[in-house]
C-alpha cells in the first residue's frame, strides 16, 4: 500500500523511503551460490523486503560449511543448501517469494534462471564460473554485483551490461580456477562483511541510485582494517 510501511520496515524509512521499499518489494534478485557470501546476501535481502529471491546452488551442506555459511547448522548437515535456505528465509520473512534452483549455474541454464531477475549477485567460488556468469548477465542485460573472499580479504564490485568488470578483475580462470582461498580458507567475518557491502550496492541499483563501485572495485583488508577503491581501466 502506497505511503504505508509494514512495521518491520518502519524504522528504515529515512534510509529506504516508502517508494524505495515498494521498489524492493517489486524486485527479483538472483543469487548464484548459497554458501558463505550467498547465504548472508539472501538473509539481508529477505530482511530488506526484496519481493522475490532466486537462489541457485546444487550443493548440500557439510560440516566444513559451519565456519561461515548462514544456512548451515549442526542439524542440517547433508541437506540441500537451497532447502536449508527456504527454511531459514521463510522464518525471517514469509512474504518473500522464493524460487529455489537445486542445480549449478551454467551458460545454458542462465536465460531460464535469470529472465525475470532485476539484478544478479555473484556469490560463486570459481573464478571461471564468475567470468561465465558475467558473460551471461551481459547477454541478458542484467546488472551484476560480484564479491570474492579469501582469508582476511575481500573484493567487491558492480558490473553493468557491457562493463566486463569481472573479466578485467579476475581475468582468466582456466589455469587457476580457485584463488588464495584454497590456502587461506574463509572465516566467518569475511563473507559476512563482503555480503553486507554487496547488499548495499544491490539496494542502490534496485531503487535507482548510482552504485559506488561501477568500473572500480573495493579491496577490503580486515587484518589491517583497510578499505580501498581502485579504478578499472576501460
Amino acid at each position, binding site marked *: 500500500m502506497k505511503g504505508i510501511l509494514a512495521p518491520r520496515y518502519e524504522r528504515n524509512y529515512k534510509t529506504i523511503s516508502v517508494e524505495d521499499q515498494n521498489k524492493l518489494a517489486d524486485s527479483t534478485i538472483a543469487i548464484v*551460490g548459497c*554458501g*558463505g*557470501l*550467498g547465504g548472508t546476501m539472501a538473509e539481508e535481502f529477505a530482511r530488506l523486503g526484496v519481493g522475490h529471491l532466486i537462489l541457485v546452488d546444487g550443493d548440500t551442506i557439510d560440516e566444513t560449511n559451519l565456519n561461515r555459511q548462514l544456512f548451515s547448522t549442526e542439524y542440517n548437515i547433508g541437506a540441500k543448501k537451497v532447502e536449508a535456505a527456504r527454511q531459514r528465509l521463510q522464518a525471517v520473512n514469509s512474504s518473500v517469494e522464493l524460487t529455489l534452483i537445486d542445480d549449478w549455474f551454467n551458460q545454458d541454464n542462465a536465460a531460464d534462471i535469470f529472465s525475470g531477475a532485476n539484478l544478479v549477485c555473484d*556469490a*560463486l*567460488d*570459481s*573464478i571461471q564460473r*564468475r567470468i561465465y556468469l558475467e558473460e551471461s548477465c551481459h547477454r541478458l542485460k542484467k546488472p551484476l554485483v560480484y*564479491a*570474492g*573472499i*579469501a*582469508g*582476511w*580479504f*575481500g*573484493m567487491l564490485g558492480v558490473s553493468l551490461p557491457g562493463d566486463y568488470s569481472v573479466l*578485467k*578483475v*579476475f*581475468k582468466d*580462470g582456466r*589455469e*587457476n*580456477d*580457485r*584463488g*588464495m*582461498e*584454497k*590456502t*587461506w580458507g*574463509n572465516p566467518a567475518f569475511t*563473507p559476512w562483511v563482503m555480503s553486507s557491502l554487496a547488499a548495499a550496492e544491490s539496494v542502490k541499483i534496485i531503487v535507482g541510485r548510482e552504485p559506488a563501485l561501477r568500473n572500480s572495485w573495493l*579491496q577490503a*583488508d580486515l*587484518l*589491517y582494517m583497510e578499505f580501498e577503491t*581502485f*579504478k*578499472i*581501466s576501460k
Partner: protein
Amino acid sequence: MEVNVKLFATLRDGRFKEEKANINENTQVSDVISKYNIPKEEVKICLVNGRDADLNQTLKNGDTLSLFPPVGGG
C-alpha cells in the same frame, strides 16, 4: 632508480604493505615480482600508477606498482 611497491591481501603475508624498491634501468614488473619471491600465479591484478599493466611492462623511476592476488572464494 626507485619505485614504490604496494602489496595487497595475502601478498602482504611475510612481506610488507608498501616499500620503496631500488631497481635497475629496464626492470620489468615480473622482475620485481621475482625479487620478492612472489609466485607468478599469486598475482592476478597488476597496476602501474593505477593503470592495468602487463608483467613485461618496464618500470620508470617514481612508478607505483600495486599487486593483487586472486580472491575468488564464496
